[in-house]
């Protein structure tokens, strides 16, 4: 009974990690860009929602609708003015630029909002739960997981059913040929990063309503997100969801044995999966 409960909590926690990771997975799949600032961008999103809620008194779930376009714009701007300039065969410049960005965002948030922990207040929904007979689950974790599934589903629909998705896939497969067909990779990349930051804003909403956050926690979220992406396999969005669930369940299991082992067991699960399957669980065929 305890085990089922732990695994169910882990599954739902995995939904949160999948939300952290989905944007990263999209960007990585399309332009092979490893964005080391992704965790800090999620935290930035959380502070943006917090600012909107305190300024207007809106519920965080509505504030996110205002925050998302801003974050899309930020993603567009970052990609066109910064990241497009360093993409190329050499992986060092994009890694270092995003690492620099991570430190800049972290410390800018620190000087703007101080190191105090903050939380997004979502009202009574935070404490509600649903009794499913075998286990009782919180409404917020369920909502998080449902959102993760919805986000992955929507991204997949965009990726495989729309003209934009076709352009994403074409650019990912062969940039030069895509250009011959009238696609501008720079624009495609900018849209992709914009979408990634919209997903990051949704992740920020759940991060901020479920637990406290402060400017320093971005890098840890980045690690969980990357573990999910790598476990899932490069470029597979459903794989990323599976990867998030693996990390979430491993953390929940570890924490149920000893609370100090939560993060450690997530990392160890990551190492074990990679030792057995170096390319992740569901690698895309052509990479």
């Amino acid at each position: 009974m305890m085990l089922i409960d732990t695994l169910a909590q882990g599954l739902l926690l995995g939904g949160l990690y999948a939300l952290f990771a989905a944007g990263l997975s999209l960007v990585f799949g399309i332009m092979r860009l490893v964005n080391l600032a992704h965790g800090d961008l999620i935290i930035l999103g959380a502070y943006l929602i917090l600012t909107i809620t305190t300024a207007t008194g809106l519920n965080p779930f509505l504030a996110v609708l205002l925050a998302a376009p801003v974050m899309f714009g930020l993603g567009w701007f970052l990609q066109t003015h910064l990241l497009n300039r360093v993409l190329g065969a050499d992986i060092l410049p994009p890694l270092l630029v995003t690492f620099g960005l991570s430190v800049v965002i972290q410390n800018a948030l620190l000087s703007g909002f101080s190191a105090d922990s903050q939380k997004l207040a979502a009202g009574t929904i935070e404490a509600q739960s649903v009794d499913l007979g075998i286990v009782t689950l919180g409404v917020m974790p369920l909502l998080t997981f449902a959102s993760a599934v919805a986000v992955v589903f929507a991204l997949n629909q965009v990726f495989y059913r729309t003209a934009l998705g076709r352009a994403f896939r074409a650019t990912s497969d062969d940039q030069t040929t895509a250009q011959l067909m009238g696609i501008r990779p720079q624009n495609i990349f900018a849209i992709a990063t914009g979408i990634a930051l919209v997903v990051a804003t949704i992740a920020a909403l759940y991060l901020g309503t479920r637990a406290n956050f402060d400017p320093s926690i971005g890098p840890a979220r980045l690690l969980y997100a990357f573990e999910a992406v790598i476990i899932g396999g490069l470029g597979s969005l459903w794989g990323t969801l599976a990867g998030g669930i693996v990390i979430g369940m491993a953390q929940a299991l570890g924490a149920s044995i000893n609370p100090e082992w939560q993060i450690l067991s997530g990392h160890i699960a990551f190492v074990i999966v990679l030792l057995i399957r170096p390319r992740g669980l569901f690698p895309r065929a052509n990479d």
Partner: protein
Amino acid sequence: MTLNRNLGLCLAFLALTALYALPAIAPRAMVQDLFGILTLLVLAMNWNLLAGFAGLVSVGQQAFVGIGAYAMFAAIILAGLDPLVGVLIGGIAAALFAVPMAFFAFRLNGAYFAIGTWVVADIARLAISQWKALGGGTGTSLPKGTAKEMAFVDQIKELLDVSSAAAADALTYWLMLSLAVGVLIASYVFLRSRMGLGLQAIRDNENAARSVGVDPVKLKALVFLLTAFGTGLCGALAFIQITRVTPDAAFSVIDWTAFVIFITVIGGIGTLPGPIVGVAVFYLLQRLLADYGTIYLIVLGCLGIAVMLFARRGLWGLFIDRTGIDLLPLTHRPPRMVASRPAAHRRSA
């Protein structure tokens, strides 16, 4: 060229003499300050070898600093050894840890490698937090007076006529300075050697390098182990000075890896003098912006980004391009073409 080189050697010799004489003439605060700078310099030179020459962009160097520090503390507290022996054990422990870490991380390439090393470093931090004999998550301190009872401290005390604490500072300072000089010379010799040439060939074109018989994995693994050893030594030595160790401080990604990355990038990644230039810039920034809290970190990040956008070989690379002076050149001049005249009478390059 020869004039340049002789002048450079003379200047370097003078600077080194001044640096070694420093504890005898300068106040203790300055020695401690320089110790901190030298620590960052040693870390930066090691990371530069990894990322700039072997193409291994590690974000997990804090693992080696932390393991070096903890092994040193264990050697002192649990085994009762002299701190200097502890430092050596710290370096060896870090190198030993690098073996399984390499087995795992080398399966990941490029950007995955960066994340993989970071995760391993976090595993090391969390695992060491479970080591109750060394204080677990809250850490532990060196027994009182450990530094003063180190070997050679008494001799230095008499030689310089200072307090034991100042003598201990001088000793750790000299060791760190020697480590910095040692790493610099070793890097130069290594990179000028056949193996170093192979390493740079891999960085420039791995397939071409393999086709002429260079084994990339072997060379990269060697560099990974050697830099782990250097980083571990440096970490252990740094924590003798700090005297207190906690998992969060010893495995801090900001203190031991982020700073180091920015220093190397700003100074000039893939050049030997780069880290030295970078550490000077870092120190100036820290000094100038000391009163403004975290601003210097923001400035540092922006500088790093700007360098990557506009001058990928950093300040030192800019300097070489402008002046043509390269103090520690790693380029090998190709053998001259001899078509018309016999080569026997020519002076060889």
